């Protein structure tokens, strides 16, 4: 039984199913993250956001949640590398002429590139607010200052753009990989997936944009 499960996870479909599961959970995290971030808009002093942040930081569950999150990212990334390597090796000679006629989208065609950018962005994001967090009581203020700078605008715009693009293919691909497909629902799932990418991307992009245009104060 366990042997069978182990073999399944080692297979192409098993790897992708695990990628799909971790990906869906990460989407859940993104939505939660966005909800928290929206508190930045609740008041101009950032009190709501700071209260939320301190609750989070003082929670005894935080280390476990962070470890789980890190694990999700790691599994997703390690599997992506493995699947990508296999996919690349599967065609050793490239076509001279190539044209797409399926449902290849800018999002689907760039999953690896956007994935890499999101990873780099994640590291920069952690550096900004975790590793190199400036001194100060109000996290909201720190966030606003960082995002209002030109470099902040640039890094966060590129990061969330890649994230949004990545997500436009994520949902539909994950559902198909997990076998959740009904004939006739294809178009709906495609639209939902596209919408998810655009909405999450724009929502996250709003922060650097608003703070940059509005100034740190």
């Amino acid at each position: 039984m366990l042997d069978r499960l182990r073999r399944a996870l080692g297979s192409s479909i098993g790897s992708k199913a695990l990628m799909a599961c971790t990906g869906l959970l990460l989407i859940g995290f993104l939505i939660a993250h966005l909800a928290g971030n929206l508190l930045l808009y609740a008041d101009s002093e950032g009190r709501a956001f700071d209260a939320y942040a301190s609750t989070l930081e003082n929670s005894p569950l935080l280390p476990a949640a962070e470890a789980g999150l890190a694990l999700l990212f790691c599994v997703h990334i390690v599997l992506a590398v493995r699947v990508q390597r296999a996919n690349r090796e599967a065609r050793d000679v490239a076509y001279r002429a190539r044209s797409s006629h399926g449902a290849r989208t800018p999002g689907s065609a760039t999953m690896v590139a956007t994935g890499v950018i999101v990873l780099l962005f994640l590291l920069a994001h952690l550096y900004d607010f975790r590793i190199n967090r400036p001194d100060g009581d109000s996290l909201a203020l720190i966030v606003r200052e960082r995002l209002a700078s030109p470099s902040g605008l640039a890094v966060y715009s590129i990061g969330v753009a890649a994230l949004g693009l990545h997500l436009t293919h994520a949902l539909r691909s994950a559902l198909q990989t997990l076998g959740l497909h009904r004939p006739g629902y294809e178009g709906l799932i495609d639209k939902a997936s596209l919408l998810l990418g655009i909405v999450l991307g724009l929502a996250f992009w709003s922060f650097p944009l608003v703070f940059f245009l509005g100034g740190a104060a």
Partner: protein
Amino acid sequence: MAASPTTLRLTLHVWRQAGPERPGGFEVHHLAEVSVDMSFLEMLDILNEQLLSQGRDPFCFDHDCREGICGMCSLVINGQVHGPEAEITTCQLHMRHFADGDTIVIEPFRARALPVVRDLVVDRSALDRIIAAGGYISTDAGSAPEANALPVSTAVADEAMDAAACIGCAGCVAACPNASAMLFTAAKVSHLALLPQGAPERDRRALAMVERMDDEGFGGCTNERECQAACPKAVSVAHIARLNREFLRSSVLGRS
């Protein structure tokens, strides 16, 4: 509207390769007087006759029934598997879909698991091995029950037939950005999983066929549906979803 021409002048870039381990490259040839009524393969016949008359080697390409059912023909034409028309094989493509003066790039199916045998001919035995791993119902001759003993609804029979329509041409592999054989494998798993006759072997079938597919060096599915668009029999990626389901179900809940 100007009358369309009845013959075409064409420039062909055709892949030439002496053997699996040998280097390959494109050769350029010109054809005049290609009738628009010719099939694509008849156009290649003419090219080969022209080469023979010049004392040169003709190109090898796979073909047999020339009516779109045997699955033997296998070309990538201007970057499109089986050419520019949807839901047909190369042998069903006719030259009226090309214009006078066109340049056509003709390549073999490309995948590590489908090595070139010679010129445009590839070795597709990997697909046979995937079927051998479990793409059947194990009923010995003579042991079958009465045919009407097991009713099957028309909807299920139709869906099974949609999947069973696969001709094994490997066009899905050739079109997939990852050279994946998921649609091919899924078509057989789905066909047999849908029918009650296939139920006794469901658990082992998906696992064995996917294991074989992976071992052959095909890539994985990234759900971009290039396979479905290239499939001459319009086999749907819904069958890939069913394969995924079958595989995951068998992995977690299946009896060994």
